[in-house]
């Protein structure tokens, strides 16, 4: 059973089906796309049920040669780092397609773009070969570029090109880094391979970087730059306001998944493959993450447009993800990984609702609204829930990840891994989140209805409410039963941290992945800066 291949290419099958339908049958096209993404989601849930959370190795692994001479393989695998991102992708792709009923222009092409994007993102999360990863990583750009450029807002061409060139510029560094890493693997073993399992085995034994410790940080930064642009992290974020402001709603929802390819990149590649560089370079990155948290929140508070406000809010929220990951503590990394999911859900619900507003009113400018609560109470209520989730209210999904990320970062700061002041500042980002989100809510829903055009806005329709309700379900699920999401990632996160923090020879290897008890042996060697909670055992 090539479950992972099936999952990855199911959306492509849908593309073929959609393209075979005549353009005039718009409803059939939409239904076909929705059906495809629904089945894809179902398959990903099936994977989840078969997922073994006790091992950190790659599961459902597929290994076949692709370009043998260059050691490039078609290799897929699933672990605790990627499992939830895969589910997030399939789920939000479904939501994005279901939310696109109002798209009337070139429906076939639109749905094809969404499905290709889904496929490319799944491929990115599942690849265990760096070149394959890079291929999928780059493949996401084209459908996204088309989505903005064809179905976007007024300044769509500029936004689309900026998105494309900016993220591509980041990827060039990644490409150079990949080539260099391959070269290092060749030097160490005599055979060329881009299989991260094999590369990491060399790294773990300290062979890959032996004698090249001065170069390791440079290659690390080549990887990191691409992922920082993608995440986005301050100061590489300026593509995101334009992208969010100009894309169609479905595009924004999927780009809220796409940004996770950046944070995922850190977990999958940067931490396990550059452990020596991680220790020295991560404190710098943590500072950028914290600047992003506060800076994004401050700038969000003065945006006149809801979509731009949400873009800066994403910068701020993703800062928590990065900070959690950079803490290199188990609590922090799990928090960061969970926050990825929370941000995906809460950003999506707000974008969906902002999109519904835009459909009704043709604007997302704050000054065009006011007093809508009296007119559309249900809309206001669900918007409130989405807003509170984004604010990080305990009981909603937004709280748990942010809280754990901060607790982990605090531990790292307490140990002197980076300055404790960073965490204190990052914590203030939570206050600022309330400032800009409450401001947005007040501007849209409170006060008197001032504009004539808002006097007859219809409340949410049943179908719209159903979609929003589905997201609300996950808001409370994530808030009240977060262990559902934390448990499957625990062993893999633990493994990733140990890969990044141990001395050569003590680092766990994907290649030897057997069971979690392997990690316990390694943990006895935990260096002091990440010892964290384990000390009390």
């Amino acid at each position, binding site marked *: 059973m090539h479950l992972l291949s099936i999952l990855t290419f199911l959306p492509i099958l849908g593309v073929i089906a959609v393209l075979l339908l005549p353009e005039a049958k718009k409803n059939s096209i939409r239904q076909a796309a929705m059906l495809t993404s629904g089945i894809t989601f179902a398959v990903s849930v099936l994977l989840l049920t078969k997922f073994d959370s006790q091992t950190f190795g790659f599961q459902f692994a597929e290994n076949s040669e692709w370009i043998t001479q260059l050691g490039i393989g078609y290799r897929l695998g699933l672990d605790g780092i990627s499992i939830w991102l895969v589910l997030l992708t399939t789920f939000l792709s479904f939501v994005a397609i279901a939310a696109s009923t109002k798209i009337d222009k070139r429906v076939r092409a639109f749905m094809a773009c969404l499905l290709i994007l889904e496929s490319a993102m799944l491929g990115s999360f599942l690849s265990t070969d760096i070149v394959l990863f890079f291929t999928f990583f780059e493949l996401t750009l084209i459908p996204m570029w088309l989505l903005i450029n064809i179905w976007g807002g007024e300044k769509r061409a500029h936004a689309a090109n900026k998105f494309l060139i900016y993220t591509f510029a980041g990827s060039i560094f990644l490409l150079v880094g990949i080539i260099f890493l391959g070269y290092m693997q060749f030097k160490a073993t005599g055979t060329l391979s881009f299989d991260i399992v094999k590369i990491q085995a060399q790294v773990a034994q300290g062979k890959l970087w032996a004698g090249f410790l001065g170069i390791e940080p440079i290659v690390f930064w080549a990887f990191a730059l691409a992922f920082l642009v993608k995440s986005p992290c301050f100061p590489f974020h300026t593509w995101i306001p334009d992208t969010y402001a100009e894309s169609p709603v479905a595009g924004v929802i999927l780009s809220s998944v796409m940004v996770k390819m950046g944070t995922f990149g850190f977990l999958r590649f940067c931490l396990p493959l550059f452990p020596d560089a991680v220790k020295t370079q991560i404190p710098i990155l943590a500072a950028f993450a914290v600047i992003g948290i506060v800076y994004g929140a401050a700038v969000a*508070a*003065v945006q006149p447009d809801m979509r731009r406000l949400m873009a800066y809010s994403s910068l701020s929220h993703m800062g928590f993800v990065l900070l959690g990951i950079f803490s290199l503590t188990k609590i922090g990394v799990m928090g960061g990984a969970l926050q990825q999911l929370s941000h995906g859900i809460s950003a999506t619900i707000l974008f969906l609702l902002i999109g519904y507003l835009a459909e009704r009113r043709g604007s997302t400018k704050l000054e065009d609204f006011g007093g809508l609560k*009296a007119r559309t109470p249900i809309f206001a209520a669900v918007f409130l829930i989405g807003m509170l989730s984004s604010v990080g209210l305990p009981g909603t999904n937004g709280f748990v990840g942010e809280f754990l990320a*901060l607790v982990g970062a605090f531990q790292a700061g307490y140990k002197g891994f980076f300055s404790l002041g960073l*965490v204190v500042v990052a914590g203030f980002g939570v206050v600022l989140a309330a400032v800009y989100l*409450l401001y947005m809510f007040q501007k849209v829903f409170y*006060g008197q209805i001032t504009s004539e055009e808002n006097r007859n806005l219809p409340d949410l329709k049943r179908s719209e409410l159903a979609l929003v309700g589905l997201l609300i379900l996950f808001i409370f699920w994530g808030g009240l039963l977060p262990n559902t999401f934390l448990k499957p990632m625990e062993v893999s996160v633990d493994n990733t941290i140990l890969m990044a923090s141990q001395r050569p020879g003590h680092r766990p290897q994907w290649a030897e992945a057997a069971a979690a008890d392997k990690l316990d042996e390694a943990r006895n060697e935990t260096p002091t800066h990440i010892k964290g909670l384990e000390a*009390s*055992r």
Partner: protein
Amino acid sequence: MSYQSIWLVLLFPILGFLIQSLAGTRIEKALGRKALGAIAVFPIVLSFIVGLMITIGIKPGEPAPMVTLGDWITAGGFRIPFEFIVDPLSMTMVLIITGIGALIHLYATGYMSDEKEYARFFTYMNLFIASMLVLVLGGNLVLLYVGWEGVGVCSYLLIGFWYTDIANAKAANKAFIVNRIGDWGLSLGLMLIVALLATSPMPREMVGMDHRFLSYDVMLPWLETVLKAHPAMATGIALLLFVGAAGKSAQFPLYLWLPDAMAGPTPVSALIHAATMVTSGVVLLNRMHIVFEFSPVASAVICVIGAFTALFAALIAFGQSDIKKVLAYSTVSQLGFMFIACGSGAYWAGMFHVTTHAFFKALLFLGAGAVIHAMAHNQDMRNYGNLRKYLPITFWTMILGTLAICAVGIPGVFGFAGFYSKEAILGGALANTHAQIGGVQLGQIAGWVGLGVAALTSIYMTRLTCLTFLGKEERWRSIPAQHHDEDHGDAHHELDENHTPHEVPPSMWIPLVVLAVLSVGGGFMLSKGDAFEKWLYPTDLSVLGHVSTEPSNIPLALYSTIAAVGGILLGLAFYLKGLPKNQGFDESKWSPLRRAERDQFGFDKAATVAAVEGGGDIARGLWLWVDNGLINGIVEGLGSLSAGIGGLLRRWQSGTIRLYALMMLSGLVGLIWFFATVVAKGGR
């Protein structure tokens, strides 16, 4: 009833919330407003009954039982279950929350009866009760934080209940944001605890317990042993926790939100912004008292802030004409008293004042609500006068509440509720030697300040009573009646010369009477044989030992009686005849001091301007100059540069997509070439 049933106490308000939110409007249509009101009150009453039955079964002094309902967060060897603590502290609060809460819910069914969105109001109210119960019952600091933020949201929603007035919405935002600044401190405090404990060895008797770092049964004894070795850490944790407490309990400078919170309906002011939520800071200090016991410095800071807040707010109360604003500043001032107690180590006295204050301040707010209700929602005391004639029940119950807050009593014989708690606080402060920095007994100084504020309390409360109920002048009679169109859909008519106030309906005066009884006898009953102290703290504190609330060499009872009675007499002298000429509507005739008090000595304005305008300018500066100008400028600059190069290429091949494909292709070629040479050199 066994403590195991504690989940029932939580369940009822949550069910109430779900019913109100999901089916409220439908029930209202089908069964009517009365039924919906009953459905709102009923769960709170049930909670109170269950809470009372559980409380009876508690034996103080035994280890507090924890009831675990299930797992919540488990990550990286850090476990936070859904667990609840059943001890005298939590159950005292449960009884206050559900008891006073039920009375205020009942009152609100009357007060809000003209309101269009009845169901929405009770949705928020039931949710508030549930959140507040989580705050006090939660068995670890994270659950406390859940309740902490939960009540903050309910407060936000209820302050902004009448959202069509944008001023209310802004007041709601202010409340939430200022509260969040406090939450920031609290969350850092609990992170510091986690980091500290995670790196400290567990005491031997606790080895083998699971990693519930923030659960009270694990954390408190552990902290005790750890902080003994790290006293500086105690000050750090204590100050961070105090920032949280100061935010929720409206201490200077974070008090800013509370006066604005009066924009909410009056039952909300009584329940949330007087009796329960604002006291949660005191609850936190009681819960975590071991940390504060280790830190004289933090304790002194708490005393100083508490005393300053008490004085500052009492002075501001003199400059207020809005009846609710007077009570709001009075609440801030009384909260200051509670913090003086906690700073001095008399933690139980702080809780005692929480309890008695809940009785009389809820009464005063509800009484004020009755007045407002009777006066066509006009809140300006300058329009009142002689209302004792029209509102006898309200008048007499409020008189009792006023005597309670003024702490009137005959030492050794009988006193109103506030008499006993204020006496314990001032006694505790004057007797303590704990709250000091560098030998300066700041706690004792706070006690003397508190004594002065007690006199001020009597004066401003007498002012309120006189202006509202006494005097011959019915000042609203001088408002000329105006004919106005009824097109604004407002059910309330305006206050004018033709207005005749009517006593409120039973649903509103019954709670007044019950609270009046408590305000009269509550303090006496609870202090009999030191009942309350022995109930909350049956044994001596582990660091401070026995905390005395009876200072030697100071005839405190005499002084405080003079303060209470003298203040009332002074107030009567000034205001018995009605509104003085120099305090009328023409505020330019006010004395400069009173105008300064009205404006909170300029502090609110300064803070608001600094935060809103200053912060806004900084943010706009960041956006326009740094983001758009600098960062994006570089990006777009590079973009134009490459566009120039792209333009050259476009003559030959057009479109960015082609450019992209070209770059991809050349990259791939480069890759292949590179590896071809590498492989060739490798000799394969």
